């Protein structure tokens, strides 16, 4: 492992983060946007673990943090999906370009 610089791991996570961002910015389906968000959150998790392990191994702050992130992400995703389903019931569409009744 020691051959792999920390920077590479962080860059991996950063790339993943921006892939997720790109997805969030361009996917037309709301659920697909949610999936992109999961990617972003996961990339942050990688960061935490990597920092924790390689820089600050004396405690488990990073690890604990990602447990909470995962839990919260689950809650968030659940609520989001509930809302999206409700929206689907009301609009019969979950296209991101069509949900723009509220504007200007």
């Amino acid at each position: 492992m020691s051959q792999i610089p920390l920077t590479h791991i962080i860059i991996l996570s950063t790339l993943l983060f921006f892939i997720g961002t790109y997805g969030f910015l361009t996917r037309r389906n709301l659920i697909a946007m949610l999936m992109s968000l999961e990617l972003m959150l996961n990339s942050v998790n990688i960061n935490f673990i990597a920092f924790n392990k390689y820089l600050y191994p004396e405690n488990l702050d990073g690890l604990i943090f990602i447990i909470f992130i995962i839990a919260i992400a689950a809650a968030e995703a659940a609520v989001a999906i509930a809302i999206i389903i409700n929206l689907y019931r009301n609009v019969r569409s979950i296209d991101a370009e069509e949900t723009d009744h509220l504007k200007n």
Partner: protein
Amino acid sequence: MNLPFNLLLIPLLPLLTFVVLGIFGRKYLSSISGIIGTTSMFISAVISIQTAIQYFASSPEMHLQQIAWKMVWLPFSEDISIDIGFLLDPISVMMLVVVTLISFMVHLYSLGYMKGENRFATYYSFLSLFTFSMLGLVVSINIFQIYMFWELVGVSSFLLIGYYFEKPSAVAASKKAFIVTRFADLGFLIGILILSFQAHTLDFQTLIQRLTQNGSPFLHDAITTSFMGVSALTWGLLLVFIGGAGKSAMFPLHIWLPDAMEGPTPVSALIHAATMVVAGVYLVARLFPIFIMSCPVALEVVMWTGVTSALFAAVIACTQTDIKRVLAYSTMSQIGYMMFALGVSGSGGESGLGYTASMFHLFTHAFFKALLFLGAGAVIHMIHSNEIKDMGGLRKSMPVTHITFLIACLAIAGIFPFAGFFSKEEILTAALHANKVVYGLALVTAGITAFYMFRLYFSIFWSKEASQGDHHHSEGTLTMKIPLILLAIGAATTGFIPFGEYVTNNGKPFHSSLDLAGAIGPVLVALTGIAIAMLFYKKQNDRPEKVATALSGLYVAAYRKFYIDEIYLFITRNIIFNILGKSAAWFDRTIIDGTMNGIASVIAWNSNFIKNIQSGKIQDYALYFFVGVFGLTLLAIYLVN
């Protein structure tokens, strides 16, 4: 001498009358308001005459200025303040007499003349207001006091001219009178400011002292400070004179006076003949020491203005057909006499004859001109018209008016032994000593004066032989006749008062002897004028038309008052209203308002312009968010370096 209280009654009685009649007159005192006004005026007049006698009798060898009463009215700074006071000196005492006397006559006359008017009480209250203001003006101890009362007489004149407010022409005339004099007052005001700045005082005595004494630093300063090549002192005096010229209807600020005849005739007699219009002369006389000692240039301007106005008005008077307008122009002409008399005057003794003559003429003129107006009023009262063509042959139906009018005409024409002869003679003498050109012009004017006055006289009382039955009205009530008679006595006799004993520019009496040889010429000129008038107007004939056609250019120009009104109209309507007024209003609505509204619309436009960034699409929002994050990061990094 008198208690100040007694003196103060002179102006305060009219003031009181004004207040009482103004507030309660209309409702409660309508019927007796005339009597109240006349009574109070009578008391005032009596006190004035008594004051005059006491004043001149107290120290016959030297008539000093006395301040009978004064108070600080409005202090501006330590040395400059408006004081209100009661000044006694020869001219103010003389004016007191003139004003109260004529005013009393007019009050009395109006009892009959204005009888049955709707706003009888208002009329009397205005008359009282005017009298009060005029009295305040003449007893001023302070140049600002004079300015204040100056404005007040202006406004009472305005109110009285506009008395028949339902007549549009009266409204217009009152407006014109006020605005034109107001314009002149602007000059007066600035003149006061200049003088007060130079002399550090507004008080007449101090002002005169500081601006005449040799070696006074104020005088030095006032002469050396100059603006556009003219010294501050000259500027100040000339501007003050503009005020005087406006009030006294001197050319070219005279245009309001003929129109002012829209007022009731007694008012014309009081204000626009005897008293208010001579305020300008009085003002110059008041400041005469400064003019003569420190600023002869300004005095020369006074002289030329006076003589021009005298001739100019006389010429116009020959062509007018409205009798009151003829009298108005004649007034203007006579005031021109007084003005140039001041202008040709020197200082002290014989050389101060012009000053004395001017005041003398002012005094006598008050009587005969008031008489003329009241007589004309009687005629108008009977005929219900102002036009000469509606009159003629009235000498039988109104004998009192006829005789008194004739006396007045003789007086104004300067025929011995009537009052006008003496005063005019003194003026001409003074002019002869000072300036031959002026003398010549004055002489011509005297002739024209005699002509147009007798033109009037003959047209009214002779001309066509109207039948008795044409006029059912009587000549007027007793209250109208009494003033005519009294004034006629005055016009006939006041010439014999040795004026030099009382009124001189330095307070020292001198004996002026009548130069009979010199008097022959003017009298002859006047007689010629009368003769021509008799020739033209004693009987109806076509000679006037012939002359008018022969001199058509001059005649039309004179008839049209030399187009001065039109010039004014052009200036006010086109320049003041259309250019200045309209552009100011336009600028305000378009530019200033427009800017404010423009700011509002720019903001609204911006608001509309950016509305699309809030597109309602969540991915747009996220993109802005994302870009914002990195924008702020760059900013932060920039800030750190």
